[in-house]
Structures are given as C-alpha cells and as structure tokens.
C-alpha cells in the first residue's frame, strides 16, 4: 500500500492498544475460564464443570452469599435512586440557575467525593458515625454510598442537561405552561436518558464498593464485595471464581445497558 504521509497514524500504536486490551482482559477471561475448571483448588486445567456455579447457589456458603447479594442489591438500588434524585436537583439548579455566588462552591462540593481518596472517606465516615454514636450497619453503609454515588450520577445528568438548549422550556412557557409543567412535560422527558445513565452508573459504583463498606458496615452485615474479600483471605477457591464471573457479567450488562440508553437519548435529541 502506498505510504500515506498521514499525521494520524504512528507505527506501533496498534500493538500498544492490543497489549493494553490484553492486559485488561487476560485476568478476567482466565478467571471466567477457570471458574469452569473441574478441579478443587489448583489451577491445572482438568476439564469442564458447572459444579462451582451449583456450589455458589446451593453449596455450604450459598446462604451467606445470598444474604450478601441481597444486601448489595438493596443498598445499591436505594443509593442509586437517592443519589440520582439529589444529583438531578443539583444539575438543574447549577446548569439552569444562571450565574450565582455559590456556583463554583456547589460544583466543587458535588465533586468532592471524587477528589478525596476512598480510604480517607472510609476512615472519616467510620470516625464520624462512631463520634455521633450512630450504630454502624445498614444505614451507615447506605448513607456513605449515597454520598460517593452523587458525583457519578451527576456527571451524565449534567452532560445531558447541558446538551439541551433552554429554548425548549422557554417555548413551553411561551405556550402557557407553568414552570412546573414546563419541567415535567418538556425538560424531564428530554433529560431522562441522562438520568437513566446516571442511575445505572451510581448503581454499579455502589454495587462495587469495597473499601468504604468494609469500614462502615459494622459486625455481622456483609455485602457481596466484603463477603468475597473475606473468602479470598482464606484462599481463592473455585466458587469465588464462579461468583466473580457472575458479578463481572452483571457489571458488563449494566454498562452495556447504560451505553445504549445514552445512545437512544442522543438519537432522540
């Protein structure tokens, strides 16, 4: 092929990209494959089996994982809903509220959970709850999750809202809609894809969190990541690989979903 003197292509960059993808995916794929390995502990391949998945659902630790999974899902659902609502209000105020004094401060505050290292949030939350005598447990996990899910929910909602010109609300008000109806009938449907994406991301973030949950969960209550971490400390058993594979698939499913929700939204716009 004639060598184009293109300024876009650099020799070797494709190899780097493939290397990058290989490094990101290799461990995940190998764990997925070995979750079907018919061997008790070692990593030598000894044939295909479903039994680790059976073990996850019906084995000795099944009850523990089931409770942990339920806790994870309930917490993630509530945290995602709450943070999406809070983030939506904040996004509407910040993006449609014109210029005002506390704007930069509010913006910084909303993104603060992204700036403070996770371990510091974990320590601070534990200290705070203990100082005010709040018993650690379900409620503390939930509160901490809502806080750090807010910026993740905020980002896609704000991005979406920024892409919607304020002329639509103005047109609605010109056509005799009150502020509330202009919001409900015009702006809300238009920003819904952003809210869905925000919800899903917040959901994944809450579902995935280990460090903060580990600090504020208190004794006796486990989420999936803390249960897995506890089990891994005893050694990586094949049922852990099976459960990891399942969680991995859930994450991939949710990301794909949020990706498509965003795309549908963009087409509509």
């Amino acid at each position: 092929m004639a060598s184009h003197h293109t300024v876009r292509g650099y020799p070797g960059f494709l190899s780097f990209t493939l290397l990058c993808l290989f490094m990101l995916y290799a461990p995940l794929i190998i764990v997925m494959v070995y979750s079907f390995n018919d061997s008790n502990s070692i990593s030598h391949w000894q044939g295909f089996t479903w039994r680790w998945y059976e073990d996850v659902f019906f084995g000795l630790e099944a009850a523990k994982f089931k409770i942990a999974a339920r806790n994870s899902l309930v917490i993630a659902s509530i945290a995602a809903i709450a943070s999406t609502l809070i983030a939506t209000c904040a996004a509407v105020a910040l993006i449609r509220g014109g210029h005002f004094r506390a704007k930069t401060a509010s913006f910084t505050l909303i993104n603060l959970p992204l700036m403070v290292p996770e371990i510091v949030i974990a320590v601070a939350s534990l200290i705070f709850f203990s100082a005010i005598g709040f018993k650690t447990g379900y409620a503390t996990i939930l509160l901490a999750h809502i806080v750090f899910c807010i910026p993740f929910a905020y980002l896609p909602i704000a991005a979406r809202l920024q892409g919607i010109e304020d002329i639509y609300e103005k047109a609605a008000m010109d056509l005799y809609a009150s502020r509330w109806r202009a919001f409900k009938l015009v702006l809300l449907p238009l920003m819904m894809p952003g809210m869905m994406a925000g919800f899903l991301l917040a959901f994944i973030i809450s579902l995935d969190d280990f460090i903060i949950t580990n600090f504020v969960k208190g004794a006796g209550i486990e989420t999936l990541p803390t249960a897995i971490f506890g089990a891994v400390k005893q050694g990586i058993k094949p049922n852990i690989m099976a459960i990891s594979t399942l969680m991995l698939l859930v994450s991939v499913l949710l990301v794909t979903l949020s990706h498509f929700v965003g795309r549908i939204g963009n087409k509509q716009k």
Partner: protein
Amino acid sequence: MATVIAPNSTTAESSNHSSLVGNIRDWLLMPSWLVIGLFLVMPVLMMLVYSFLTKEFRGGVIWEFSLAAYDQFFIDRGLFGDEPIKIEWTYINIFWRSFWQAGLATTFCFLIGFPTAWYIATRTGNSKHIWLFLITIPYWVNLLIRTVSLKFLIRDNGPVNDWLLTLGAISEPLSIINTNLAVQLGLFYSYLPFMVLPIYASVERYNFALSEAAADLYAGRWTILAKIVLPAVKPGIIAGCILVFVPSLGAFLAPDLLGGAKNFMIGSLIEEQFKGNAGNWPFGAAISMILLSMVLVVLTYYARSQTRRENS
C-alpha cells in the same frame, strides 16, 4: 458597540420570571449540600479532630488533646521513649514507597495508555465506538474482582506458572506474588483505564490540521508528536496522571491482596489502625489527614494550572 452607561444598574436577574429554576434554585441545591456537607465534610473535620485526641486501646478515643499521633508518625523516641529524639523513618518510608509505587504506576500507565488513547481516537466511525467500549468495560468491573483475578493469575501455583512449567520455560515457579512487582502490576492494572479515557477525550478534540501544518513545515512525525501533539493534549495527560496517581497513592486492595505483609502502602497502614486488634484511631486519623493534605496539594496545583490555562 455597546455603550457602558450604568455599571451598577440593578438587573432583572434576581427576579427573572422566565427562568425555569428561578427562586427555588437554593432549594434544589439543598439536598446535595446537606448530604455531602453532613456526611463527607463533617466526617473529614471530625477526623481532623480525632487525629489530635488520645487513643483508647481496643479502638476509639479518649477526649483529651494529644499530639501523640503526629509524634508517633514523625519522631522516634526509642522503644521506651527515653532515647534522644530522632526522625522516625518507618512511616515516612511507607509514604515514600507509596509515592514511588504510585509514580511508577502512573508512568507505566502513561506509556501504554497514550498510544492506546491515540490509536482509538484516530479510528473512524463505528470501530472507534467499539474500541472505546472495550476499554470502558474493565473500568466498570469491580476492582476487587479484578484484583482477585490478577492474584489468581500470578500466584505461585497459578495458571501463568502452570503454563510456564508445562512448557518447560522455567523449572521452579516464579514468585511474583507478595513482591513490590506484584503490587506495581496490580496498581497498573487497576488504574490503566483511568489514564486512557481522559487522554482519549483530549486527542478527540485535537485539531489534526496542526499536525499537517507542522508536517508541511518539514517536521518529522516524532517531532510533531513531541512538539505539537503533546503540548496540545497536555490537559488530558495531566488529568489522566492525576486519576491514576491519586487512587494509587491511597490504594488498599492491590497492596493488601498482592503485596502481602511486607509491601505495605499507606492504605494498608491506615486500615490496620482501625481494623486490627492493635487499633490506634488517632494515629489512623493522622495518617489519613497527611494523605488527604498531600492529595489536596496535588489537586490544587492541578486546578491552578487549569485556571491559568483558561485565562491565558
């Protein structure tokens, strides 16, 4: 064209009745202020207070002012506290190792992440979306699961050693796990997508006519890369570096699961003060404060450089 006639005129902004938000703006902001203020800002302040209190054995604190936590961090008074004052190196060394590991991880992430981001951003049409999607997926997969996967892969009796032994490439299993190398690998693997995405966003916005203009003026492609492209996409590179460096610095999972007891980083040190039996809450709070202030210095520097860029 417009004439200045009334610089202090009262504008209609405060009572603009055509704005959707209008006078309920503060009410809309209230929930986020309340939740983050009460459950993040307050806790951090409380942590600051705790770092100046006296420890209680078995965790918790006694409400008595004390500098013991910071003293323990910086000053060595000997085993019984009666020797001449020296600098305590134990914790400074852990910080130093964390900085070194985080810096190294950032460098490696950049070296692999930049070409990747560039390659993806220069694809066209659908293939760009597919590449980008492939990079995004690991970004959202549970960090714990990714770390566990890596641990499984590289442990002494893991598949890598198994294959290498089967192939006859090695006669003894390589011990990678529980070394600094394993931690490094873990950090690199954990935060690689954080480097690719912001650089990608920068390259996307890069005006390739600049490269063409440089090529037209006799610059070779590597000169163009160094002198034209890198300065132009610098904001993305800095953002990527911060997104890798800051979480690496406070990382807990990678050093804990891959590094074992010998390769402590700040995260594990902090965790130990709260989770272990030898809990020392004021000390843990003090280490967290030191970590937080270092991170805030980095972020402030970043914010400053951003503002300068916008102003120039």
